[in-house]
């Protein structure tokens, strides 16, 4: 029934053409500025220059690290939460999903302000820590990488959960029990059955979270107290302070490549365990 190529193209092309025309074309033209040599012709000197600065290298690595960390933690929590939600009965499922969605509608700026209240020296977390005797003096959580991490995680975790819910929902019913009786513990069930069968969901969720972290501006700026430079901060500086759109397009392309690489890597990870390994 699914053999007709023309039919398939007719279904897929409108979306592809739309994205190509209104999106890819202009972005590619803009990004090509980063490769233009001053006297005409093409060059990658803008990129080599960018990476020759030790500051930029450090920012690049930090961005990568924070993005990866948030993505991984979001994936772990996201799977647990999505799995729990999917196993709820239908009525509850909708309500809990609603709760997950709720925070998404709050402006990221307002959310970071709420974190200031929670993580501050007199905030709930510090009060709790002190009451529980975990720490004596208030901890400085705010304006640190930890705060950025918490803020980003809260910002993007719902995206991961929601992407995973839809992937988990239609998983073949008996696949998990089958793996269980074949001796898989929950970790192995996850790694060998759930992950590959929900690959699409975790790839989209992971890409959303990772890209979100890379391109988040306000949360790192406010919660990190601008002490922790990220690539997106540099990009904003180029645009809003230096008006240097060429430099901005260089950083933008680096961010795009990072996201794209993350996307591919995620796909790999999700599929890696399932290569047919037949000794011949």
């Amino acid at each position, binding site marked *: 029934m*699914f053999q007709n190529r023309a039919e*398939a*193209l007719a*279904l*897929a092309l*409108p*979306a*592809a053409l*739309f*994205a*190509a025309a*209104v*999106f890819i074309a*202009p*972005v590619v033209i*803009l*990004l090509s500025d980063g490769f233009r040599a001053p006297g005409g012709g093409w060059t990658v000197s803008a990129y080599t220059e960018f990476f020759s600065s030790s500051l930029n290298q450090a920012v690049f690595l930090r961005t990568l690290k924070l993005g990866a960390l948030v993505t991984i933690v979001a994936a772990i929590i996201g799977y647990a*939460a999505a*799995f*729990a939600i999917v*196993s709820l009965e239908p009525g509850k499922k909708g309500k809990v*999903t*609603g*709760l*997950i*969605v*709720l925070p*998404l*509608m*709050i*402006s990221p*700026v*307002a*959310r970071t*302000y*709420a*974190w200031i*209240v*929670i993580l501050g020296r007199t*905030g709930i977390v510090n009060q709790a820590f002190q009451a529980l005797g975990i720490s004596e003096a208030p901890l400085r959580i705010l304006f640190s990488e930890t705060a950025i991490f918490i803020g980003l995680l809260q910002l993007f*975790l719902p995206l991961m959960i*929601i*992407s995973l819910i*839809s992937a988990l*929902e*239609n*998983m*073949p019913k008996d696949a998990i029990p089958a793996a269980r009786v074949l001796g898989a513990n929950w970790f192995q069930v996850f790694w060998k059955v759930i992950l590959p069968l929900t690959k*699409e969901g975790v790839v*989209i969720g992971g*890409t*959303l979270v990772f*890209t979100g972290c*890379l391109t988040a501006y306000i949360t790192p700026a406010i919660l990190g107290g601008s002490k922790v430079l990220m690539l*997106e901060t540099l990009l904003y500086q180029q645009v809003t302070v230096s008006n240097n759109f060429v430099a*901005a*397009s260089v950083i*933008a392309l680096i961010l795009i490549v990072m*996201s794209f690489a993350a*996307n591919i890597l995620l796909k790999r990870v999700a599929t890696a365990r399932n290569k047919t390994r037949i000794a011949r």
Partner: protein
Amino acid sequence: MARNLFIPITLGLVITFLIGPFLIIVAASFSAGETLAFPPQGFSLRWIAKVFTVESFRDSFYMSMFLAIGGTLVALILGIPASYALSRYKLPGAETIRTIVSAPIIVPGIIVGLSLLRYIVVPFQVGITLALFLAHTALILPYAVRVVSASLGNLRSDIEEAAVLLGSSRLGAFFRVVLPNIRGGIMSAFILGFVTSFNQVPVSLFLSGPGVRTLPVDMIAYMEIVFDPSVAALSALLAFMSIGIVFIAERFLGFSRYV
């Protein structure tokens, strides 16, 4: 049993984490104080009342709603067929198509806004509203395609064949047996798309024009200088509204006849 505790504990922790800041915001909306604080200082409705008196919020709210709902719907209309084709057919170049339609999520918004302004709006004399609409639709498209694909991928295709054999057209089979079973995916795509669009700031920064502004851009401008709890109140109102929209969308996609 261990398994039975897993669900409530996980959900409890995750929801607390996600909702915590939201509760602060809600508390602040009803507080009498001038800043966010927990516990809130006194009770008053003045911040909520203030939201409704800010005129510029109203126009940009309508604009944002239009972009978010309209953009999400158009993206779904473009995206669902595409994801269907990608997951059901053996298409040459499927990977390329997938990459093209998913590209918008990985491009920093500020670059999107700028390049659309320079290479679409200016050369083609496209109106700002239309440009915004195109941009938002393109931004939502990846969610529509990828999230829906995720559900479709695991849905067995023989039920569609069964529907066709029982006299349904291909399209009919899609609506009758595929759609109800990927409702979760479509809902997810809708939510993600709606929220992305509604919170979109960087793209809209450059694609705002005389008389055309989106709500988050307005809110950021407002918060640039003052952050009084009215912004919190607005956020809380929006969040509750979004639940309403999700609820309506669920109904709309719910095919209650079948459930």
